[in-house]
């Protein structure tokens, strides 16, 4: 019991720490202690849901993040420039100190032509080649979302577009994994906050920041009491432990029970559905069936 309490407390501390850090960033900026770092947010083969998730950020808000924490030079969904000029912004950034964020998996089929991201001087640029180019020069590389971190839904069987994860594709660089489908904006903003201030990050053997992925969902699940007493939900919508409905909480590392989603509005278990293990390697294939009766 003591151990359990300890893990709960440890996670509470994480929340406090990250919040404090965001405040510190404001202070640091005023004192001119560091400069915002350039950032390329690169959408590869996926649903572009991680940039949408980032727009939902609340600790701090995305407007603050873009104004004060990074200088985002390239992002397909929100950048004003288009066409060749947009791709040139990507190329220009490569000559600076920058963070490379990739969301989506890397499609290898037909030499990458299942994910063309630009036409440059009449040549098709594949996501695969652009990522290779940028990864050589990036100061930090982040694989954001399950597709980039582990292949995810883009690589689901039978993997029609030949997708692999970013770390499988770029093997000679340190890549921080921020899995999740999508990645919680709290994890992205927090990780980038660490990098631009301390330049340090505690990571596990899979290169995931321990701050966010150090414990399992089950460790801090508010339904843990039901689990201990072996009281199980019979259907989606029930309030008890959902292990028998297929909940992947015990094998899924993420701090969803603490930070929840969308400015702490709720989270999957909060609305009576099982965790489907979206931060795990092998998601979705090895996490299915998501729901079983």
């Amino acid at each position: 019991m003591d151990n359990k309490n300890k893990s709960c407390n440890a996670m509470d501390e994480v929340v406090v720490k990250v919040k404090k850090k965001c405040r510190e960033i404001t202070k640091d900026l005023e004192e001119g202690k560091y400069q915002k770092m350039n950032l390329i947010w690169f959408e590869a083969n996926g649903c572009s849901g991680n940039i949408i998730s980032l727009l939902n950020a609340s600790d701090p808000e995305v407007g603050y993040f873009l104004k004060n924490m990074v200088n985002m030079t390239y992002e397909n969904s929100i950048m004003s420039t288009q066409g060749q000029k947009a791709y040139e912004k990507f190329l220009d950034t490569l000559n600076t100190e920058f963070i490379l964020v990739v969301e989506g998996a890397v499609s290898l089929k037909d030499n990458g032509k299942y994910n063309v991201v630009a036409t440059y001087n009449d040549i098709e640029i594949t996501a695969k080649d652009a990522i290779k180019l940028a990864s050589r020069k990036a100061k930090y590389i982040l694989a954001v979302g399950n597709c980039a971190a582990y292949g995810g839904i883009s690589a689901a069987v039978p993997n029609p577009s030949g997708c692999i994860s970013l770390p499988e594709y770029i093997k000679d660089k340190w890549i921080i994994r921020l899995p999740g489908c999508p990645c919680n904006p709290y994890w992205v903003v927090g990780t980038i906050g660490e990098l631009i201030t301390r330049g340090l990050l505690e990571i596990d053997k899979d290169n995931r920041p321990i701050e966010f992925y150090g414990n399992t969902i089950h460790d801090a699940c508010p339904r843990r009491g039901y689990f201990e007493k072996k009281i199980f939900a019979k259907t989606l919508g029930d309030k008890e432990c959902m292990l028998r409905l297929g909940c992947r909480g015990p094998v899924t590392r993420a701090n969803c029970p603490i930070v929840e989603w969308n400015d702490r509005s709720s989270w999957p278990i909060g609305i009576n559905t099982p965790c489907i293990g979206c931060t795990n390697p092998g998601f979705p294939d090895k996490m299915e069936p998501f729901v079983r009766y």
Partner: protein
Amino acid sequence: MSVKLNIDPLTRVSGFLKIEVQVENNKIIDAKCTGSMFRGFELMLKGRNPFDVIYFTERICGICSTAHSYVSSQAMEKAMEVKVSQLAMYIRDFIHGAEFLQNHLRHFYLYTLPDYVRGPKINPVYNEDLSDYRIPENIEQRINRSYIRALEISSLAHQILALLAGKAPHNHGIFIGGVTSNLDANIIFTVEEKLKTISGFIENNMLKDVYDIAEYYKDYFTKGSSGKNFLSYGLFDNYIEKEIFYVKPSAMIKGQLEAFNADYIDESINNSWYEKDPKGDITDNRNKEGAYSFVKTARYKGEAMEVGPLARMVLCGEYKKGNASMDRILCRVLEVNKVAMIMQNILKLIKESYISANSLEFKTYEIPNIAKGEALRDTTRGALGHWLTIENKAINTYNIITPSVWNLGPSESPKSLGVVEKALIGTSIENISSPVEVGRIVRSFDPCISCATHIHGNNFKDIEYSII
């Protein structure tokens, strides 16, 4: 003199889109829309557990994921003959409404506006070099403030979604039988508060912003017309309350309104990177000669049909002006205002139900051995259809036709062009080295390419394929 212009990537859309136009004497004489990414969800879904299709298909799209859970859950309910209670329907429709708010707010401010204003001074939004810039500085500054505020307001829409459905994007709360969340007074009033804040922003800021853009860019009321073919599968049409009812399934061909008939839906792959293999299966082939997109072609009675907010506003009789780019942008904003009001009225019904102590019933379900189901519903970007068959308790076929397939599909033949292609052709380009007109016209359709690239399943009895 004839020149070919390529805009790739056409940014500020979801996914990857390339637009190629042929310009002669400053007029577009030919246009091609290319969806440049492919994942193949229909192939992935084969053999999966039918209960999983809701959480699986919503991952087609990051910006409109709720659209897919909304439609796939109804396709499953059809297959399993599950009846949804009225309260569950209200809540699910309300959740779907929240996705409308998020999409339209973000599309207008984040995706559309940078074509008309230089934007707030944050990267990668600010654009000093914007050409054909016409808005006076004081109005621009006000619109830029709205942009910043819209970041926050659009997140509120996703917070409403999360309160009722767990998280966004990729919610958990929409499921077979309707929804999984239990209501309580905190949730009801929190949702109400957030909705009121969003409505206030739309009424006081967004409407003013769109009318100003429309005023300074009047010529866009004549640029980018796709013709008068409109299609809707119906939206908020299960309600007798007139303040909620919006549009029933309907079609308009060459300006003539007619009742909707699903049998007229057809699709082809003539100019798409797919082909039929000797066994009759459809497979992807990026090197297919003459093809130029991963998006397939959808037709209704053989016609290319425009779908989306303009189509709905025209079909329900509320919008009687034109059908060009600015009409489309204006209708999207008028619609988000309307949806916010519809949601307030649905929330009243939810509250009444809550006060009279109605509660949701949750059941377990069994997967049928053999079944088929479909759901055709309008969602943020227009008409969305999911068709599925189940065999041996597993998904056998799954076919999806998204709104962006209707709007951004390639031509079927030189005489049967895609909707956006038609809208582009004939447009005058003032400055060939900076063809701003192209982006403005294409974005008015709110393209979503993550959604749009799908193989169609073979052996699907309900759809007659026309593969020539």
